[in-house]
């Protein structure tokens, strides 16, 4: 973990709700090095977005965060609002799921790009404008000069997401967080946007975190994957190792539930029965145990810890991991 650009250490996020305390993020440790890509996978409500907001220090006001978020040697949880503002958009950038709501509908694309650039870099208007045009061209937007004068509603969803990526890349960030960047988009556009992110990540040697609910999106596009369930990381491994041998039943179930092209039509999908537990009513045992087909014995009474498998890089939290020779 040493030398990581970003390391999240023992992060806990608590949200007070009328129904009691909601633990959105439950003791999470993560790290990403420069030039590396981490995928965070999980269902809605598993806390993956809250985790990314904890990194960005953009949690709701009522939320309580404990633990440390180390970025470039600084603990972001202790920085002043002023310092954070200088960091966000400059070194720490984010692309959100829905480009329609993350772009301002009443400002032109140009205004939004130039504003970000001038906020963080010392460029005059003409230079900032030139840079905006270059950025739009880099993210594959045709006729970038004319786009500057357009409003978000005049662009398609894929083009809007490209603009959001251009804004995120505008100040050469060290870390880019892409929170479900393609969920609102079509399959063909999704592939284009993921390719674009991968290309820019390589070219700029950025660290990147891709948050998604689709294991297909992270395969082949990330160096490491962390699978989240009910606020915890339940399996973490280098991407090739994870897809070669999944240990956590949840990861396996998530993969099995994806419709596959090589399966004949009308084959029933192995769905995960039930739904995630109520986060305001934490379970005593493993949070996945009510839905898990391997659940037995202490699964319902004791929480498994995230611990290494055969290699130090492959971690999982399960008492009855999927067999790979070694018993639990």
């Amino acid at each position, binding site marked *: 973990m040493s030398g990581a650009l970003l390391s999240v250490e023992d992060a806990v996020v608590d949200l007070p709700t009328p129904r009691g305390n909601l633990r959105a993020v439950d003791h999470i440790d993560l790290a990403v090095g420069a030039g590396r890509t981490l995928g965070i996978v999980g269902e809605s409500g598993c806390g993956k977005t809250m985790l990314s907001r904890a990194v960005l220090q953009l949690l709701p006001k009522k939320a309580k965060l404990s633990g440390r978020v180390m970025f470039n040697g600084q603990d972001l949880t202790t920085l002043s609002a002023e310092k954070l503002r200088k960091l966000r958009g400059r070194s720490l950038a984010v692309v959100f799921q829905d480009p329609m709501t993350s772009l301002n509908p009443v400002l032109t694309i140009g205004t939004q790009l130039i504003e970000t650039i001038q906020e963080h870099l010392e460029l005059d208007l003409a230079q900032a404008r030139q840079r905006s045009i270059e950025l739009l061209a880099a993210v594959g937007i045709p006729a970038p000069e004319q786009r500057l004068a357009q409003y978000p509603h005049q662009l398609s969803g894929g083009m809007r997401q490209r603009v959001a990526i251009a804004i995120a890349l505008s100040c050469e960030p060290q870390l880019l967080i892409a929170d479900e960047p393609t969920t609102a988009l079509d399959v*063909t556009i999704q592939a284009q946007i993921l390719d674009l992110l991968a290309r820019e990540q390589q070219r700029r040697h950025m660290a990147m975190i891709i948050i998604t609910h689709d294991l297909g999106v992270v395969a*082949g596009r990330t160096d490491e994957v962390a699978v989240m369930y009910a606020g915890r990381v339940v399996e973490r491994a280098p991407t090739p190792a994870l897809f070669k041998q999944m240990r956590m039943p949840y990861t396996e179930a*998530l993969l099995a*539930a994806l419709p596959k*092209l090589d399966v004949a039509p*009308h084959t029933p999908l192995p*769905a995960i029965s039930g*739904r995630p537990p109520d986060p305001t009513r934490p379970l005593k045992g493993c949070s996945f145990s009510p839905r898990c087909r391997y659940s037995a014995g202490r699964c319902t009474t004791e929480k498994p810890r995230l611990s290494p498998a055969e290699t130090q890089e492959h971690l999982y939290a399960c008492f009855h991991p999927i067999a790979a020779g070694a018993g639990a």
Partner: protein
Amino acid sequence: MLQAASDPLMKVENLVVEYSVGGKTIHAVSDVSLEIARGETLGLVGESGCGKSTLGRAVLQLRQAVSGKVLFDGHDLTTLKGEPLRKMRRRVQLIFQDPIASLNPRRRIGDIVAEPLVIAGVKDPEERKRRVDEVLSAVGLDPALVSGRLPHEFSGGQCQRICIARSLVLNPEFVICDEPVSALDVSIRAQILNLLEEMKARYGLTLLFIAHDLAVVKAVSDRVAVMYLGRLCEVGPSEQLFARPAHPYTALLIEAIPVPDPDVVRPRACRSASRRRRSPRPPAVASAPAVRGPMRAVPARCRNCAWWHPASSRLAITH
């Protein structure tokens, strides 16, 4: 197994739907013909804006077609009006993409599911309750627990179950599913797809399944129709269409599906062709947009291809 039989339940002939936007005419659906046999599931795929939802709505007569016919069980729906159309609509139902938005937040689940019965003139409350309870149990919800509750108390997947129950309460023969799982998570998506298959068998339904995700469409469809810019570019049996796509656009859609295996060498995404074919008249073959970018060569013979034929020299197929 199920080929379009001699007596299809739904037959769409040369359907044209246009919207006029700011003085311009947009061809949402241009000259589409389809047949769906009884008991068959036809998948309809295409990107946003290709006209697939408009086609679904035009079939139900929620959009007025400019020309063409929609023959349901031999009756042309486009010529029906008023009470006869309303009667026919009981046999054709629709499930929408966003399950939460398609439920009235202020009404109780029992009332929401009973509403089609009220409209259909089922006066006896006991009878209504019996049918609502039956259909709620069929979709895997406990009627005693859910009937009195409001939509916000349910998750997206459960709301979609409620929407499915509502669409089935009148015992329809034909159900149009418009992106029924694209708003749902992977694990819930599989549950809902399985449920649709179950309901299809239980109620003997014929489905038009609209989605943009080919893998999802393949999981449930006997045949698949691929739509692009208001036209069908390929129609074929699912297995055949996926194994040997005849149209380059179909091949492009298949390649774009993320594969959950890091060892799969993925071709870089193709740039999709220009989507700006919104001129007043459908263009001649010669002016159809070319598909650019790397793409594997495709068979020249096309099963059921519309305007840009793969053999056409206008089509730049390069590596």
